[in-house]
């Protein structure tokens, strides 16, 4: 019913600070990106990572969507740092939403974040 705060403290914090929002600047290593968009669901997310020695050393996100989408994108970007492409990133919608306390009706939007991570994982996978 009415009265409850739809945003958990962690969502508010990530939304307000938006750490890692934006694009990577010039630098060493390989830069890879992954993007997903579902305008009818109200989400458009893009990740960029810099990979050095098989490990993500820097991650950035851009997101258009509700606060939960922005917060989940920021959280995912944080977790992407230290990730070794080729391994599973472990950043699916269910994980992100549980950590952030996202209401059920927003799950569809978090799938867009997951899709962008998946696209990134495909783009960043080491060529074998």
């Amino acid at each position, binding site marked *: 019913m009415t009265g409850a705060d739809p*945003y958990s403290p962690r969502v508010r914090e990530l*939304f307000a600070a*938006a750490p890692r929002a934006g694009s990577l600047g010039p630098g060493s290593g390989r830069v890879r990106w992954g993007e997903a968009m579902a*305008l009818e669901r*109200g989400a*458009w997310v893009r990740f960029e990572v810099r990979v050095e020695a098989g490990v993500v050393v820097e991650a950035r996100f*851009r*997101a258009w*969507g*509700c606060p939960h989408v922005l917060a989940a994108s920021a959280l995912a970007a944080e977790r992407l740092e230290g990730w070794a492409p080729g391994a599973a990133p472990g950043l699916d919608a269910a994980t992100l939403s549980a950590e952030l306390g996202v209401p059920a009706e927003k799950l569809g939007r978090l799938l867009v974040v997951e899709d962008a991570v998946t696209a990134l994982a495909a783009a960043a996978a080491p060529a074998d």
Partner: protein
Amino acid sequence: MENAPVYLDHAASTPVRPRVAEAMCECLGPLGAQANPSSAHAEGRRAGAVVLRAREAVARLVGATPSSILFTSGATESDNLAVLGAARAGRDRGRHVVTSRTEHRAVLDACRQLEREGFEVTWLHPDAGGRIPPELVAGALREDTVLVTIMHANNETGVVNDVAGIAAACRGLGVTLHVDAAQTAGRIPLDVVDLGADLVAFTAHKLGGPKGVGALYVRDRPRPALQPIAFGGGQERGLRPGTLATHQLLGFGLACDIAAAELEQEAERVAGLRERLWEALRPVGHAWRNGGDGPRVPGILNAGFAGVEGESLLLALAGDVLASSGSACSSASAEPSYVLRALGLSDLACQASLRLSLGWSTTAAEVDRAAAAIRRAVARLRSIAPARATERVA
């Protein structure tokens, strides 16, 4: 209050006017009108007299006779009584109803209920400006049409329909016309006789009165057939039972009196503030107004900002501006506004839109403060969004 957020959500609910609050408090106090206004004793009659004066005040604001004003718990109930009541009362004459896609949910959902009861509903699409042209209504009328229900002004875009034109289209055809005037009463001149409607819904909390009280105008002559949605007690000519809430009606009536006294001057002032707000927002670029040109209520600015998502904009603004991305009752849902979609806006454009609604408490200083905050928030969210999001607006 310098640092309190600017309240730009008058379309969802207006703050209660201080004089109204004061009078209601007195009525609730030990010397107030505490008895049941249906009681025959002196205190009951005193409460009854308060009710009577409130009825006269509401009637005066909208050019009606007091006996044509029924009190309800709000526009939602008024809409339901009108839509369900008129259609059910007419079901032996026909089972066709005409409405639009941009009605308030009280009307939409009442019409959906009629569909479940065997009525056929024609759902009209607004033109690009968000209006329902009278010709469109005329074209939808059939031999078996018993009810047309079209709102006066839309609660998201503020656009005003040509109700008199729609009434003309219905005239002489035995069709009952209901008009939801929740957003116009007390905000623009409104005369039920000029509107030509048979039924008109009002609510107090959009015009400086309390929440939880409203009215339904029911034309006197000819009186449209109406089946009650609730029964018992005999109050309100047997059409709306329940103990009348004296203090609420007192507040409603007084708010109507105040609104009536200030109507034209306030309409001009608020419309001026709305334009001032829009002019201050335009420099942010890639911004547009929803609802096109043509008549609209003074207090609503529905604007879109490419590259921005409404809910995030609201949260980014939270400490500075209180507004809505759609109607209050759907603001908790994740759905894009059905009203803006019906106007033909793309998903992106719908979700990039914000309803800023001004009213009696709004000042120029607040407008300036709000505009600055909105510009900052839009710029920040755009800096976070994918670069092409700002360009991609249909």
